[in-house]
């Protein structure tokens, strides 16, 4: 906790150390492979996710690794396209949430009233269990990608806001901050140069945790039918359809589940690796 003020190092080389340990290397490999597979899917399968075959609801086989769905479409292809939807969603949502949340948390140093007000608002958000909040957003915006994006951001804000605020509260009374103030350095400069660096470690680690939460949130909302709508595939939407055929073709949902678990596992390992790197002294 009692860390000396450090220059804001945007080269991120500190965090790259996480990828020097086996855990980090493994996590990075899985994430890179999944991401590449997802985003190259349109190039590799020019037929898109709607190419129908003759045989519906096939079990897993060498020809169709994850089997086929009710219209004879290959579930592996659909899962990859689904993963693409999910990853697009979280890769957009997570940085926004992290940046806005941090800003909201640190704003208390520039204006005390605004800071307190924002904390109260975040408290109200926390009062809503995650999924209920998601439902509220869907209620206003209707189902689909934008609503999911906004739900993820709104649900994530309090976490990052509080982390940043904790860093602010622990640092703002320290001598170096007072010294900087005495030197006439503006409050907003102090926030960027001194307070932000103290919050950034925790925020980055939490970011890796949050990506998993976000993917699961998409899946939860899509499973109940309030997320991504068919025919657009997402991992949750695939599970939603797969559940209807659970007795005829139990392996239908297995493919998307495997991908979800791999993704969650990789990001948990990444969290661990980042955590160790950050706490290494």
């Amino acid at each position, binding site marked *: 906790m009692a860390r000396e003020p450090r220059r804001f190092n945007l080269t991120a080389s500190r965090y790259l150390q996480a990828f020097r340990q086996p855990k980090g290397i493994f996590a990075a490999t899985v994430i890179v492979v999944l991401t590449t597979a997802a985003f190259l899917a349109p190039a590799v399968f020019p037929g898109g996710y709607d190419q129908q075959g003759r045989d519906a609801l096939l079990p897993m086989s060498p020809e169709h690794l994850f089997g086929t769905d009710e219209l004879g479409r290959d579930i592996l292809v659909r899962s990859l396209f689904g993963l693409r939807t999910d990853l697009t969603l979280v890769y957009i949502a997570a940085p926004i949430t992290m940046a806005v949340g941090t800003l909201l948390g640190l704003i208390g140093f520039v204006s005390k009233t605004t800071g307190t007000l924002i904390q109260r608002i975040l408290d109200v958000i926390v009062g809503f269990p995650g999924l209920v909040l998601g439902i509220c957003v869907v209620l206003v915006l209707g189902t689909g990608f934008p609503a999911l994006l906004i739900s993820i951001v709104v649900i994530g804000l309090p976490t990052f806001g509080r982390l940043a605020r904790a860093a602010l509260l622990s640092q703002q009374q320290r001598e170096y901050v007072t010294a900087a103030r005495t030197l006439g350095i503006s409050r907003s400069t102090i926030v960027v140069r001194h307070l932000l660096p103290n919050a950034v470690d925790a925020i980055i680690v939490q970011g890796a945790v949050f990506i998993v939460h976000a993917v699961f949130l998409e899946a939860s909302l899509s499973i109940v039918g309030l997320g991504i709508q068919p025919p657009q595939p997402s991992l949750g939407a695939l599970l939603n359809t797969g559940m209807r055929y659970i007795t005829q073709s139990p392996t239908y949902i297995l493919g998307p*589940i495997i991908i979800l678990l791999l993704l969650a596992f990789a990001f948990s390992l990444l969290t661990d690796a980042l955590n160790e790197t950050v706490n290494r002294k």
Partner: protein
Amino acid sequence: MGLALGCPTHQVAEGTGASAPSSGPLVLAERTESFVLQFLTRKIPSVLFVLVVSSIVAFILPRLAPGDPAVVLAGPDPSPATVEAIRQQLGLNLPLWQQYLDWMGGLLKGDLGQSYVLHRPVGELIAGRLESTLELAALAALIMIAVGLGLGMLGGSPRSRWARSIIDVFNTTFLAVPPFLTGLLLILLLGIVIPLLPVSGEMGFFEDPGISIQFLILPATALALPQAAVVARLLQTSMLQIRSEDFVDLATAKGVSPFRITHKHVLRNSFGNAVVVIGLRIGELLAGAIVVESIFARNGLGSLAVSSVQSRDYLVIQVLIMSAVFIAVVIQLLSEIVLAALDPRIRLGA
């Protein structure tokens, strides 16, 4: 989610070792009672604030959505006059604040309003679904508490490395896996591969308890295990932390048996944290019911919430959102009271 537990660690409470304070349960009961009153008067303003804000949110949100329920209700090709008549009848032409006050007034009198879409009182709709969700949530809460506290205590007690690593694997797995995935995996495992339990549908508990339980086990377990892992992890951490306190060393030095140390000293001092986290988790449990009910095809409040969002049934959804927040807040308050009752420093220092 981050656990912002504002509770101090409790080391002093049992600091004097084996001679546990037994100054009579009567004194304690009296103090607790007056404390509860004090505590409530202190807490109620902030609770009311959260409730009022969330009721406004629950009221405004559906109305921000595009679409006019009066047009929907009027059926295909309505004349403007019909739409206007329906709007008048539903009170939709009144200013928003007046609609809100009417709604709140009704709520306080126990009148939850009338569903636009299903043409039935909201209270009746909710009552029809309540049993299913209550059964699910009650069993899930039981499993969560039993498994969470059980594993947490095992993990926090001096045990073989073997036992502890099994508990660690359980915790890490279920901390990472949300209820819907647990549910899907349970369906695949116990419903399809080894067809032991039914995977979808339900049966009222009072119609046939035996069959009802069979339908309940999988969804309740799916709902409970991820939350149980949170409880277990927290209790374990807190027990291990308290075990390293000086007063435990003192008790060991005085020759108190390891069993008694664990139960009387370590466990008792860690329990407060566990109670708080259980209270927080019950809200999540209820939210998780939305997905779990959908996966297991149960007709509870969760599926009512989903269908009323899909059909834009304002009054139903706003009551459901409101009650979810209400229940979460009340349970949190209860757990804080229990916490204070357990910890003399909070109780007496308050």
